[in-house]
């Protein structure tokens, strides 16, 4: 409750500060507010607070863990991209939209009722449509916003129809009631159709292989800083909701649908990694890389009945940090070269800005899953659970595609090491430099802290 109230008041407060001409206090206000949210979720830990006793939203440890992860990722995102906001005329609108989207993220990881799931998804999605299209004069941003809006609306509607059908079969929107019906009576035609439609809607939202077409387009077209948010906070919230659905509600169906999950996870890994190798645009490459990580996280959802949710939290946090760093570096690199996003834009980055080059290298290697970095442990947790389930072929695909991923991540790293004539330094703000350093340290430190997960 506190977390939701603080964040939504923060969004309104940002708007109020804008009207009252207190613009220079907005950033400190947001930092203090988001830290307060993390503090509140530590205070609430283990309380299982049930909002107004209506069983719509329950702030259990799962919800609080994801709440603080989403909050920290958003905070890191804001602190590393302050220079983007100082250039923008309508920056307070962007801040407020991000904060309201974050509220949607909280609802998505704390719902116990399908109505709240839908409302949370919409609270998150509608600001994101605006943010994707926020570069008004840029045709690519327009196209990205348009595609994101229509495919997002399509996905929401499919998910919504699924919810309606599940309600028709069970007579309740409550996850525990649905679980009871599934465990005792099994699933009839309407129930099966409903569950499949909810699954399809989620697959669209998180960008899993046959439904991933919009992801590269939207990620490439949206302003790079916004793409960074989409691949961390939004993706994390979507998977938190997806996992919670199968963790609390549809658990009995997992033994029948696990094979569908496995096929789609394998398909996303293959499609994303093969497509990524032929890309010439680094932003689009990172978009395909995010699809392949969606494949990994889908494999985690597949084992929702036996897996500890903390492992998904670890994956979301680790991937979020790596993705945030890489998109942030890409933003600064392309900003200083008239928006160039090819591999050539990275040439000589080691000389031009060593901090960025180091952070980029660490984040790419973390995403590839190279051992001394946290990405390795995240993938290890998922793979070990898949092996327990006996899906050896999926594990083989995971390992082989990770090897392919190393190839295309190395192309960017090699480009950064290539020397270049008369290139100027790429300057960045203090908060950006400190933020990137902290994120880099976190990527290494979390590898050693993985034992506590």
């Amino acid at each position, binding site marked *: 409750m506190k977390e939701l109230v603080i964040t939504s008041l923060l969004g*309104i407060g940002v*708007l*109020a500060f804008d*009207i009252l001409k207190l613009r220079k206090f907005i950033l400190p206000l947001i930092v203090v507010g988001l830290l307060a949210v993390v503090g509140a979720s530590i205070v609430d830990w283990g309380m299982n607070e049930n909002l107004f006793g209506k069983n719509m939203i329950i702030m259990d440890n799962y919800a609080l863990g994801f709440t603080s992860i989403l909050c920290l990722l958003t905070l890191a995102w804001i602190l590393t991209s302050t220079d983007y906001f100082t250039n923008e005329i309508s920056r307070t609108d962007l801040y407020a939209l991000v904060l309201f989207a974050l509220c949607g993220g909280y609802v998505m990881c704390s719902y116990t009722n399908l109505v709240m799931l839908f409302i949370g998804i919409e609270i998150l999605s509608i600001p994101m449509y605006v943010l994707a299209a926020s570069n008004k004069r840029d045709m690519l941003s327009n196209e990205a916003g348009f595609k994101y809006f229509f495919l997002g609306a399509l996905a929401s509607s499919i998910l919504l129809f699924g919810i309606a059908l599940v309600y028709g079969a069970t007579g309740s929107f409550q996850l525990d009631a649905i679980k009871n019906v599934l465990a005792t009576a099994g699933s009839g035609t309407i129930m099966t159709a409903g569950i499949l439609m909810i699954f399809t809607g989620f697959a669209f939202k998180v960008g899993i292989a046959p439904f991933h077409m919009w992801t590269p387009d939207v990620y490439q077209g949206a302003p790079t800083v916004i793409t960074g948010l989409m691949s961390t906070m939004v993706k994390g919230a979507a998977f938190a909701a997806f996992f919670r659905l199968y963790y609390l509600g549809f658990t009995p169906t997992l033994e029948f649908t696990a094979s569908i999950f496995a096929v789609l996870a394998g398909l996303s890994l293959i499609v994303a990694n093969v497509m990524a190798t032929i890309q010439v645009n680094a932003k689009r490459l990172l978009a395909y890389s995010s699809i392949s990580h969606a494949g990994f996280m889908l494999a985690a959802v597949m084992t929702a009945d036996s897996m500890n949710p903390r492992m998904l939290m670890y994956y979301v946090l680790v991937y979020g940090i790596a993705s945030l760093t890489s998109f942030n570096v890409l933003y600064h690199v392309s900003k200083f070269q008239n928006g160039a996003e090819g591999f050539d834009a990275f040439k000589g980055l080691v000389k031009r800005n060593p901090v960025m080059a180091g952070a980029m290298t660490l984040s790419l290697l973390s995403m590839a899953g190279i051992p001394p970095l946290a990405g390795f442990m995240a993938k290890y947790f998922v793979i070990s659970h898949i092996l327990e389930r006996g899906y050896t072929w999926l594990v083989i695909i995971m390992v082989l595609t990770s090897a392919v991923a190393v190839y295309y991540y190395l192309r960017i790293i090699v480009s950064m090491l290539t020397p270049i004539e008369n290139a100027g330094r790429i300057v960045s703000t203090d908060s950006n430099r400190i933020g990137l350093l902290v994120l880099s340290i976190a990527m290494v430190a979390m590898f050693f802290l993985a034992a506590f997960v």
Partner: protein
Amino acid sequence: MQNDLSHLQDYLPVLVMAFVALGFVVTTMVLTHWLGPKRKTKIKSEAFECGIESQGNARSPFSIKYFLVAILFVLFDVEVIFMYPWAVIFKDLGLFGLLEMFTFMGLMIVGLIYIIKRGALNWD
């Protein structure tokens, strides 16, 4: 079953009425097309605007402000929908319900103030 059918019979006059209305429209349209003389001139095929000569294209671009006001109207208009279920159980909810609705309306008013301050409703 008998009971249900008698229930349906109450709607028979409505059905008859609908058929008569539909039939009247179709018949008159067919008759006028069939009976009336067909003389097509340029002036006759123009759109009739109370005798004033039409100027320009009807699909000419109009000011973006109309659009903005229309969109804001839709947003604030649809919020009334929450007041219907609230009004039904208003007495059961008591003071709590009243405060909840004040909170909700307060948030809407903050949005309205923001819109006005940002100048979205200025016409000049």
